[in-house]
């Protein structure tokens, strides 16, 4: 267990000696237990349990509100009994002590929660703490009085802590099935809106009606059934997926090309056909995801490939939006040519590129972190200018420009009231953006960007005009963002300065980082998971109850990802190498590639033969 405990605490440089084992155990359990209490109380005070209680996941036992608390002891129980895994070293057998540690961590959390409930009942601190309310107390007591609440929290947290730690103890096969079942069920519950909508499109309404209760949430019976189904399926398909992936990886030449083609066609077909079966709300959601995906793809080129942290990225989004509004809307206050969207788009590209150059030129030579803040400043300046009275005669000030027409394609007009058409428009541009990212990545310019990200000085010394290369990254990113802005304005039908807060830049940054910097697939996953489920700055996601908490979650996610998984959910091979260089090196050595072995031996012999002499020689 001693190894267990040291794993979670950062190695302190101060203590050169090993503390006695038992002592360390309890301190750690105390630390995580305290953390558990803190997290539970903080979540309660932020108002998540009450705010999210309306969303029911499993009817009638579990609401999102309760889940927002209950995951804490579960995860911390898991963390507290985690072991260090060292390649080639046998890790200590997980066992009873781990379970005890998990349960104790939960117990401490539960105890803290019990104290909190009593305090909630006794004092009134509503004045500064806005969520210190009778509803919270009611919710935490399950409506059955103080005594029940206290006992229930202590019991529930201990059990959850125990469960969390037991994940280490149970055999791998069972763990797999259980976790697939649990996550699958959670997914089905969260995706309720999408699934219901989709099945309606396919005429399977009766099925979803029986799965989901009237007030929302999967029914208890169906929960059990679903967990069993998912568990069985996961058991049956065990390893198949991996094998298929490996197979695909091993394909060569034309065969691989064909496989990729089929895969691509499948995905394309799916994205084209699926929206036909979805209702307005889901299509709206998809369109929003697409808009942010477009932004994220652009930022991915700037941050992920060229390594320029541009926090004012929203400026280009704004430029795209305003250019479109001015050129197409009849209500544009100063200059209203009422052009067609297609012509506008050309001008938007030119304009965004120009603004990219103008903003890029002064900042491109700055140190990376200065650049971040200065671009943030530029992003804000642009918004303030659009908002100011000074430019009001041109851009309408805070009232913005309204009455922007949709995109008239002759046979159909794409506008916000028909989100499906907007989705298709966005889809085209996303496809374009993916193509651009993909082609550029594997080109001369892409390599130059990578080199600049790695070591700017050396890149310059190797003949790369770093200033121009970085400016180009800026411009390409700007153009993609401006597309997104143009579509957004055509969709919404109006443009306001406040749609372009710094917040947007940061949310896109979170999307790129959570998904996986420098990786197109990662950015795709990031946009779907974050924008689709949590929602964009103003756009609701599937869990629209999260509206008031999503920025908090974005912030927490950003910190968590940076600390625990900086390469993102879907890392690019290169990124994860970079961030885990040592592990990768270890791997390469342990696998001991044949050639390498020979070579090393040869070098080793040579070194032995004349080791001492060599040192003399180089010292001259």
């Amino acid at each position, binding site marked *: 267990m001693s190894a267990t405990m040291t794993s979670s605490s*950062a190695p*302190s*440089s*101060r203590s050169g000696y090993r503390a006695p084992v038992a002592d360390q155990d309890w301190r750690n359990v105390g630390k995580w237990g305290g953390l558990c209490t803190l997290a539970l109380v*903080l979540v309660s*005070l*932020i*108002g*998540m349990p009450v705010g999210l209680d309306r969303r029911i996941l499993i009817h009638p036992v579990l609401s999102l509100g309760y889940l927002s608390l209950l995951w804490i002891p579960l995860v911390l129980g898991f963390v507290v009994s985690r072991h260090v895994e060292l390649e080639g070293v046998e890790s200590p057998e997980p066992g009873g002590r781990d379970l005890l540690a998990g349960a104790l961590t939960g117990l401490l959390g539960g105890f803290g929660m019990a104290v909190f409930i009593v305090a909630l009942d006794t004092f009134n601190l509503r*004045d*500064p*703490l*806005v*969520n210190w309310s009778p509803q919270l107390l009611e919710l935490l007591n399950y409506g059955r009085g103080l005594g029940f609440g206290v006992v229930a929290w202590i019991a529930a947290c201990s059990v959850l802590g125990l469960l969390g730690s037991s994940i280490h103890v149970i055999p791998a096969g069972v763990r797999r099935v259980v976790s697939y079942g649990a996550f699958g069920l959670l997914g089905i519950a969260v995706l309720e809106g999408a699934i219901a909508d989709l099945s309606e499109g396919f005429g399977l309404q009766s099925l979803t009606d029986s799965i989901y209760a009237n007030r929302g949430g999967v029914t208890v019976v169906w929960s059990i059934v679903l967990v069993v189904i998912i568990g069985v399926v996961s058991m049956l398909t065990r390893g198949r997926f991996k094998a298929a992936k490996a197979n695909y990886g091993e394909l060569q030449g034309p065969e691989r090309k064909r496989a990729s083609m089929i895969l691509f066609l499948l995905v394309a077909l799916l994205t084209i056909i699926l929206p036909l079966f979805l209702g307005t709300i889901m299509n709206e959601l998809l369109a929003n995801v697409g808009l942010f995906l477009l932004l994220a793809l652009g930022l991915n080129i700037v941050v992920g490939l060229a390594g320029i*942290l541009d*926090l004012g990225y929203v400026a280009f989004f704004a430029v795209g939006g305003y250019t479109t509004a001015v050129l197409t809307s009849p209500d544009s206050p100063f200059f209203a040519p009422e052009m067609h969207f297609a012509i506008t788009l050309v001008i938007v590209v030119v304009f965004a590129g120009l603004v990219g*150059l103008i903003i890029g*030129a*002064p*900042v*491109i030579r*700055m140190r*990376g*972190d*200065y650049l*971040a*803040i*200065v671009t*943030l*400043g*530029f992003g*804000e*300046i642009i918004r*303030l*200018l659009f*908002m*100011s*009275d*000074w430019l*009001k005669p041109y851009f309408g000030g805070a009232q913005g420009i309204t009455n922007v027409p949709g995109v008239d394609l002759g046979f159909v007009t794409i506008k916000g009231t028909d989100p499906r058409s907007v989705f298709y428009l966005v889809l085209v541009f996303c496809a374009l953006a993916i193509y651009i990212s993909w082609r550029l990545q594997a080109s001369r310019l892409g390599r130059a960007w990578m080199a600049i990200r790695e070591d700017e*000085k050396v890149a310059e010394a190797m003949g790369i005009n770093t*200033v*121009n290369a970085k*400016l180009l990254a800026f411009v390409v990113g700007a153009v993609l963002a401006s597309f997104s802005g143009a579509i957004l304005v055509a969709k919404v039908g109006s443009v306001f300065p406040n749609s372009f807060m710094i917040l947007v830049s*940061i949310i896109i*940054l*979170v999307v790129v*980082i959570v998904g996986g910097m420098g990786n197109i697939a990662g950015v795709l996953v990031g946009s779907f998971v974050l924008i689709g489920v949590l929602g964009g700055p103003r756009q609701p996601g599937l869990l629209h109850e999260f509206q*008031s*908490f999503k*920025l*908090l979650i*974005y*912030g927490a*996610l*950003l*910190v968590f990802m*940076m*600390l625990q998984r*900086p390469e993102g959910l879907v890392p690019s091979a290169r990124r994860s190498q970079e961030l885990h260089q040592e592990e990768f090196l270890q791997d390469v050595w342990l696998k001991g590639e044949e050639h390498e072995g020979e070579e090393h031996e040869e070098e080793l012999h040579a070194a032995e033969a004349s080791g001492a002499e060599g040192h003399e020689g180089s010292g001259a």
Partner: protein
Amino acid sequence: MTATIERKSARQVSKVDRFLTLIRIFLVSLIVIGVLAFIAQQVAPDNPFARWRNPDAVGLTGDQFKGLLMSGLSQGAMYGLIALGYSMVYGVLGFINFAHGEVFMAGAMTGFIASDKFSANGLWESNFLLSLVIIIVLAIMVSTLTAVLMERVAYRPLRESPRLIPLITSIGVSFFIQNAVMGVFGPSTKSYPQLPQWLSKQRSILTFEIAGTKLLVLLVAAMSMAGLWYLVERTRTGKAMRAVAEDKEIAALMGINVNRTIVTTFAVGGAMAGIAGILWGLLFRSVTHMTGFLPGIKAFTAAVVGGIGNLPGAMIGGISLGSAESIAPLVILEPLGVPGVSQLKDAVAFTVLVLVLLFKPSGLFGEQLSAEDRA
């Protein structure tokens, strides 16, 4: 291999450089023309140059100008106090702690909660000075704690990572704190209780009309700066901080506890931000969860203006930025005929940042960074 190398004419100025020169010239001439037009207005309101861009300009009276200067100075003093935190952390760890603005906000928020309670039980009116001291101490404690926790939880594990990683993390921290505070204390604007009459009334010092509150702000800021200067230059802790800023490894070899020194740096920066938070509360009497954002970025600007890592520079940078922000819209933009100049206050602050980085990237008073951080 025979490579044919085309000879380009050497010594060519790149287009980017040419463009930058243009920007520089443009910005400088804008400022010069603005100031000249302003002077022209002041000298004779009806001369054609003054009327050229802005026919309705009325200029400023001497008292108005002094008033602007005083507001700028007092606000700048707060920027300076916050900037110290940015500067110290950058000096020691080489990254921008974007969340430092939230440390300041935490101080202002603490001040609000405490003063609100004092106001409710009457202490605020009956013994203002005592309650002021208490809220300052409380704010310092909360801000220090916030800064230290931040370091421990979010930044310490990332000490060896590339520079942008802790910066991105700090953006996340900033977001998290902002929204957690909003969740816990609500999104509404919170007002500090009324200040006693003897403090807030206008005083006349050397022909300068100044509200007592602003005087208090300047006084407290000066005292804090003096205390900080003593700490950094005259104590062992300060020596350790300077050593760690120079080279962490060597400092560790010399027996300095690097971790503790870094924590101290965050704590001292946090304390300064806490004081600034209270001063902000007293001066503007309102605080929300977003209070830290703009002052935070402006304080960073101030740190850059003064030369990052340079503590007196940070203070002077803060004061210059504050004055520029309060005076420039009326002295440069108004005579150029820009309407609604007060809306552009923040834009002016960011423009100052760009200007300084274009002309003197190491700040007005020089950076004080280790060679590694400068790269």
